[in-house]
């Protein structure tokens, strides 16, 4: 962005309002926008500003380069312009006026008239791959994460997924967050498999809010885990209780343990709601050709550092677990190690 452009967007006093167009709105955001006083600006980042509704829930107004999500309002703001430079500030009032969202006395007006509602299909249209093909896709996704991921959060654990020897080897080399999380993730996975609610809650409490980032790494991991569990169990046609019990117990531990933004994403994930790249990756793992799964993995990693990699860890854990469960139901077998 040139300094001239920057100046233009900063000087909201000169040109008011800045008008943007909403391209797509997530189905949950649609519901939350359906009131005259939408809320207040909670936080402003480069690619997004968050609006806190009176019910203490969030709506994310995002730039064009951010993908669709259940609470996202994707606008036409180009990627070279930062949300922090368009005059929107924390605590500004956000209202619904006619077919538009207005921010603080017309600092910003976003037209929602032609926006499409984004409501992803969680039951896949394409045929599911065989268990072996899904495993191959998971292996590729893991390799992509190891090659292209960010390892300042829990991403370091991806390398030892399914390899106990490797887990032992790297344990000494883990960062403090990954080292602390590792035993609790193992216990959580065991508790989910066994359907043991008290143990799920105990482990979740030892993970929620742990790690670097605005959405702490362990939260991102749990979001990936819950989303993949919900979506995969649904599509594999296996015991829906496995996912619903686990997700319900994890979600019950969230309040007060982490940041507001993270709470929101965890609550959504418990219902299988997540942004487009995450859902697409899960679909590609189960129905797509290997190169498609790998490309979708790269898109998830691009969500952010280290969030994308942490989400990926959760997806790999959840997918493995759901897949093992599906195979187990079809024929008794030895459960493959996850950590």
């Amino acid at each position: 962005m040139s300094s001239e452009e920057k100046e233009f967007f900063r000087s909201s006093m000169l040109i008011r309002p800045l008008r943007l167009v909403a391209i797509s709105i997530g189905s949950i955001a649609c519901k939350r926008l359906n009131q005259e006083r939408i809320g207040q600006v909670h936080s402003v980042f480069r690619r997004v500003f968050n609006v806190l509704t009176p019910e203490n829930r969030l709506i994310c107004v995002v730039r064009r380069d951010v993908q669709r999500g259940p609470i996202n309002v994707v606008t036409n703001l180009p990627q070279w312009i930062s949300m922090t430079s368009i005059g929107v500030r924390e605590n500004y009032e956000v209202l619904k006026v006619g077919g538009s969202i207005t921010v603080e006395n017309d600092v910003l007006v976003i037209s929602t008239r032609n926006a499409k509602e984004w409501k992803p299909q969680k039951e896949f249209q394409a045929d599911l791959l065989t268990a072996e093909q899904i495993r191959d896709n998971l292996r590729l996704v893991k390799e992509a994460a190891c090659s292209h991921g960010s390892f300042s959060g829990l991403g370091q654990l991806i390398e030892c997924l399914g390899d106990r020897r490797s887990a032992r080897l790297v344990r000494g080399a883990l960062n403090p967050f990954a080292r602390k999380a590792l035993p609790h993730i193992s216990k959580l996975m065991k508790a989910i498999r066994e359907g043991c609610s008290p143990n799920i809650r105990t482990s979740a409490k030892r993970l929620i809010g742990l790690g670097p980032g605005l959405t702490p790494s362990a939260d991102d991991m749990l979001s990936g885990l819950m989303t993949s569990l919900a979506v995969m169990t649904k599509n594999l046609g296996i015991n829906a209780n496995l996912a619903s019990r686990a997700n319900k117990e994890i979600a019950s531990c969230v309040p007060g343990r982490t940041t507001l933004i993270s709470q929101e994403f965890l609550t959504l994930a418990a219902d299988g709601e997540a942004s487009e790249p995450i859902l697409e990756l899960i679909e590609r793992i189960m129905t797509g050709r290997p190169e498609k799964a790998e490309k979708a993995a790269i898109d998830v990693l691009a969500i952010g550092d280290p969030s994308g990699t942490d989400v990926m860890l959760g997806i790999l854990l959840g997918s493995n677990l759901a897949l093992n469960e599906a195979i187990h139901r079809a024929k008794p077998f030895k459960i493959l190690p996850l950590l």
Partner: protein
Amino acid sequence: MVATVVVRKDTYRDSVTLMKISSKVAQLKGVRQAAVVMATPLNKQLLGDIGLLTDEGERAGPTDLVIALDAEDESMSSAVSEVDSLLSAREYVEAEEILPRTLDSALRMMPDANLVMISVPGNFAKREALRALRKGLNVFLFSSNVPIEEELELKKLASEKDLLLMGPDCGTAIINGVVLGFGNIVNQGSIGVVSASGTGLQQISTLIDREGLGVSQAIGTGGNDLSEKVGGIMMTKGIRLLEQDEKTRAIVLVSKPPDPQVTERILEAADCCKKPVVVNFIGVENNSIGKKGFITATTLEDAARTVCALVQGKRPRKTIFDIARKRIMSIVESESSGLSSTQRYVRGLFSGGTLCYEAVAVLAPLIGDAYSNTPLKREYKLEDVNVSKEHTCIDMGSEEFTVGRPHPMIDFTLRRRRLAQEARDPETAVIMLDVVLGYGANPDPSAELVAPIAEAKTIAEQDGRYLSFVASVIGTAKDPQDLRRQERKLKQAGVVVMPSNAQAARIAALVATRGAIEERLFV
């Protein structure tokens, strides 16, 4: 330890920004540990576990940002104000770097690229390297822990496609004047180097620079290239490429001892080369190679000086020391006069594997074999790398020291600890060090060593002993760290600084023996 926690109430920065701030704060001078996290209960517990939680931090809640610092007393206030300015700088959070995440996206950004540098965990290196080779790109493969079978497969493919595959575990190369990996800023010139050793390449290229000449191309092959399995595929290719390179007038080959059959293959390639080739297989008996008519060098320094002489049309000269014997013996006298009768051994703590190996090779004929994690003879392999025995040289860049830590060229923590340990040993007479400069290395390595050296000397003094320090600095005046400045700092700390690793090993041997090997050495 001094811990301070800065709490910013209801402060939100996106994860990328928090990571950038965290990494920037951790690099501030005097900061030992730093954590920038949201004050969730578990993060606070973690801060408490590592001793970084104060009362203020304890009171913070999940919507607050905490910056926990463990820093030197005198650095704390400047670190805190730096944190403040980083958090206040809105521009900082707006800066957005667009970095490619895959080879394909990198190629879209730079379609004319013909070389790719790959640094991913070893298990995944083959896949990335295969992709690059299939796209017709030369590869600099920094990754280590790549199975040798995969290395062979990659090198065969590279060879079929007439491409270079430098590595795996290739630390250094200079291609068309561009330094890849750890490397020094050296003159461009007419000497080509093919090296299976990263620090060996650094020592040779910097010594060529100091002779006033320069490097045309320096090709790294990775340490396993000359093994029986790989068969020297890239070293032979390197020789051919340098033969075709118009700028190159003479070539140096550097490696630890290759497999005997591979040695023959390499010598055959060198024999076919129309340009003069200097062979420096460290620790190998040179007579056999020399008898076949090859120009050989015993040390990295000899190799550099020999090839420089060849290019200048001069007669190569063997160097023991750059300064006169009398001056050397006066240094030895001054360094050894304070040694007690128990102090008999040289202890070398190296960041460069080849420098360690070369020191062992130089010391062996003078004072006997040194124990090491990379010994000349198997029976001198240290049982416990953490405990020295008689003469000992340790490669602290080897795997047992680097799992989960930065390389000792960057992080001096382990060397600092080992210095104090060796100082407490009443048998230690001389501690020998290498200090490597250049891209990728610590920004001020001598400064990292000054305090530990003083501490080590004090430990010995309190026990009624004098402890001698000998070092060589591998670098040039053009390196970001500046060779002269680094040497000056070490000299001021009471270290005998020599112009090469080989000369440092020789003077260490002289000091440890109180000059008893003088005649043997100078003859």
